[in-house]
């Protein structure tokens, strides 16, 4: 605690009661990149000792605003007040000195260092590391105990779970004297249990006077942890609420600018024959790690099977094998009654011929060639189809005609076949990929993270499209780290942990807590 005060600033202001004192005030912040107005005349007030949520769709300007506050960007106009005083935050160093800490979405830790070495980074206490270490360790232990930030200081970062890595990030910020903590999408990589743990920590930080800004797109989290919330849309703060007096529906409406349906109508229909059977599939990665262990399941026509799990527990590898990107090493797969054995000729081209379409987890790396025009991307993987050719030459007019319809039917915006796909928003890129794969009329659709980085309006549309496909009898395998998504879309859920299937349940009687326990490997069903 002592160290925080040493660095943290202003005694006279600190003595005011926390509930009425403004920790942060942003006045008329504007930031323009080229043609894009990222922040336009933004005003934001955050009371000291509260948790303030900022929600908004991708590109609404949340990250830009926080990067301005953290000194990574310089605003074109506007003023930042910290504890009532106008400050010039022109670099992260300055912002740290002013008592602002940031926990980024992607952790900034040195994977080969120990927890202690990482936590002391930036505030080592002495030129000679050994001398500082003892003092820092004492201080960190104090912080750790105070806020329930439970970590093992001896452990190497790459050996510990992400939940603990995140606690190290928070400790690091506190060790540098942070009195204001910014967290950018902190729960994206956590299990539900870890999320609960994080929220406990945040509450205890708040209760001891730390001001917290939480950026997230998960409305449920906003409702459960924040005291106040601001909604951003199109670079502006469009609404401020006291969390008690608002609802997820109201927040969503403000984020999108229109009424949004948050629930999904699942068509009820009988499942058909099994079209995908996976038997005893195991896989070893290039570094010799067993990423898949004896995976078996089947999938029927018209069924949606959700695969839940924390990212990195073998789901991606499973998708890669089923879609033909990776070679099958052990076990067997039966696709539409055709059996694939280990080391047989199995590739993406063949998978498509067998009626397997694939919406990959990473649309930037896999699903799209970003510099390509929309009309080029709309045939990626299906570019061998004769309908796009006149004799042996690709016929641009035929392709564009086809793509114009596609873009129209799946509501991809802007409605242009000759714009680089890299210029589309995340949601529209995803709609384009989904459109292409659905349009191929597959028997089996593999979907990875269908709504990652996708705004609410587009999510609504994507869910609708998946449901339409389901009612046509397509079997859908859904991999997602968003538990809500898995639970509301799937008919049946399997949970993966460390490469194994650790549980299976019907979605109607699944609870988030049960699934969470299975995801963390605590409980086997």
């Amino acid at each position, binding site marked *: 605690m002592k160290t925080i005060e040493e660095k943290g600033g202003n005694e006279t202001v600190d003595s005011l009661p926390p509930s009425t004192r403004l920790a942060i005030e942003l006045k008329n912040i504007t930031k323009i990149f*080229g*043609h894009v*107005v990222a922040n336009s005349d933004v005003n934001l007030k955050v009371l000291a000792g509260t948790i303030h949520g900022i929600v908004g769709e991708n590109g609404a300007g949340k990250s830009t605003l926080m990067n301005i506050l953290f000194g990574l960007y310089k605003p074109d106009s506007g003023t930042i007040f910290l504890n009532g005083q106008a400050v010039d935050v022109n670099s992260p160093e300055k912002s740290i000195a002013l008592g602002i800490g940031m926990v980024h979405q992607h952790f900034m830790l040195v994977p080969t260092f120990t927890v202690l070495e990482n936590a002391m980074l930036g505030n080592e206490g002495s030129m000679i590391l050994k001398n500082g270490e003892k003092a820092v360790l004492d201080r960190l232990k104090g912080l750790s105990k105070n806020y329930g930030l439970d970590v093992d200081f001896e452990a190497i970062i790459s050996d510990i779970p992400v939940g603990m890595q995140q606690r190290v990030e928070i400790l690091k910020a506190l060790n540098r004297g942070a009195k204001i903590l910014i967290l950018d999408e902190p729960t994206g990589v956590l299990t539900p249990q870890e999320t609960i743990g994080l929220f406990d920590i945040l509450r205890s930080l708040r209760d001891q006077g730390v001001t917290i800004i939480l950026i997230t797109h998960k409305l449920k989290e906003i409702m459960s942890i924040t005291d106040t919330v601001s909604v951003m849309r199109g670079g502006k703060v469009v609404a401020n609420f006291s969390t008690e007096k608002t609802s997820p529906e109201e927040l969503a409406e403000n984020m999108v600018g229109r009424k949004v349906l948050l629930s999904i109508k699942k068509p009820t229909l009988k499942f058909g024959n099994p079209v995908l059977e996976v038997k005893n599939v195991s896989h070893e990665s290039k570094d010799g790690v067993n990423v898949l262990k004896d995976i078996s399941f089947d999938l029927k026509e018209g069924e949606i099977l959700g695969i839940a799990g924390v990212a990195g527990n073998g789901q991606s590898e499973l998708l890669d094998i089923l*879609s*033909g*990107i990776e070679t099958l090493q052990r076990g067997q797969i039966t696709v539409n009654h055709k059996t694939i054995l280990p080391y047989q000729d199995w*590739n*993406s*081209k*063949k*998978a*498509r011929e067998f009626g397997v379409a*694939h919406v*990959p987890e*990473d649309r930037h*790396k*896999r*699903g*799209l*060639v*970003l*510099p*390509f025009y929309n009309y*080029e991307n709309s045939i*990626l*993987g299906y*570019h*061998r189809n004769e309908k796009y*050719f006149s004799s*042996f*030459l*690709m016929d*641009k007019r035929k392709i564009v005609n086809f793509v114009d319809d596609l873009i129209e039917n799946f509501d991809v915006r802007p409605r242009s076949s000759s714009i680089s796909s890299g*210029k589309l928003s995340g949601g529209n890129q995803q709609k384009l990929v989904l459109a292409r794969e659905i349009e191929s009329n597959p028997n089996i659709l593999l979907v990875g993270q269908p709504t990652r980085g996708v705004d609410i309006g587009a999510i609504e549309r994507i869910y609708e499209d998946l449901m339409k496909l389901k009612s046509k009898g397509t079997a859908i395998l859904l991999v997602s780290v968003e538990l809500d998504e898995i639970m509301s879309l799937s008919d049946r859920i399997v949970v993966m942990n460390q490469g194994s299937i650790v549980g299976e349940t019907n979605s109607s009687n699944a609870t988030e807590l049960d699934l969470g326990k299975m995801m963390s490997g605590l409980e086997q069903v």
Partner: protein
Amino acid sequence: MSDSNIIPKWLSVGVIPLMNLFLAFCVSGLFIFFIGENPFRAIFVMIKGAFYYPGAIGYTLYYTTNFIFTGLAVALAFHARLFNIGGEGQAYVGGLGVGLVCLIFDQHVMGFLVTILAILGSVIFGAIWGIIPGYLQAKRGSHIVITTIMFNFIAAALMVYLLVNVIIEPGQMSPETRDFASGVGLVQIHIFAKYLGLEMAMSPLNLSFIGALTVSVGFWFLVWRTKFGYELRSLGHSETAAIYAGIKVSSTIIIVMAISGGLAGLVAINELLGVHNKLLLGFTAGYGFTGIAVALMGRNHPFGIFLASLLFGALYQGGTELDFEFSSITREMVLLIQGLIILFSGALAYMLNPLVERFYLKYYGSINSA
């Protein structure tokens, strides 16, 4: 090679390259000024040398032909994100293909057929010299830049050995083969013009130039209108997306390098079948390396490559004239000017972009964003 998103295309592919060129000429002018000559007179002499004198245009276009071939070779590989530095060696070995075909067949088969076979020979031999590094990259992960550079040296050493010890014309000292039989070779344009009753000044410009233009059109179709072109561009932009699309990465790499090598090999038809009429040491004279600059400057598009080739052709030809005209401007000085142009339009191609972007946004940006 991503172009800016902010400024319109006419600025990024039209105005900026011209500005780069202008800068290069300015700096060249400074050098010429420092050695005591008048830069404006030098430029005048160069332009006259490249376009005005009888036969000058012929010479310029003859050089242009070589640059089109090597520029296209580099550009094709670049579309698949392969940096083929080996154009020089591939052209050289392409020459071996021409030489071998001619030396073996020209006494027995009619000249026209031998010429066709020799053209095929240049493509096939050049392709082989591209395939080997391509294979090593695709299957063994050896970096294409390293292997193609090494293959330039291997080609040079091989050719010295063959031309000095094996296929040298007996009874003389210079490392070259005997002349090909008289019916073999590509007609020079001025002779061709004479058949049509036109009078043209003599120059080494030959039918290869028409070939180069045809190949340029073919290049465009290949890259932008065929399945293979689609696949190689996908691979060039994103290997992961290409794998996702079921594109076979290694075979695509090998085929791209084969075509690239074959394109470079075509330099031999211009040089050997069109001009020298025999195989000789060092006929590639750096055209393969300059092809890299040509492709860079031409933004890997056949039309851009044609313009860039024309520029370098004019520089080569005009530079020779400069060398003649001024006692203080030597061959090395001309090389320096070429080097500056490569520097400004190749290596520093994007140097002016931020400046132009800022300028553009200041005067047009507000209108667009409103």
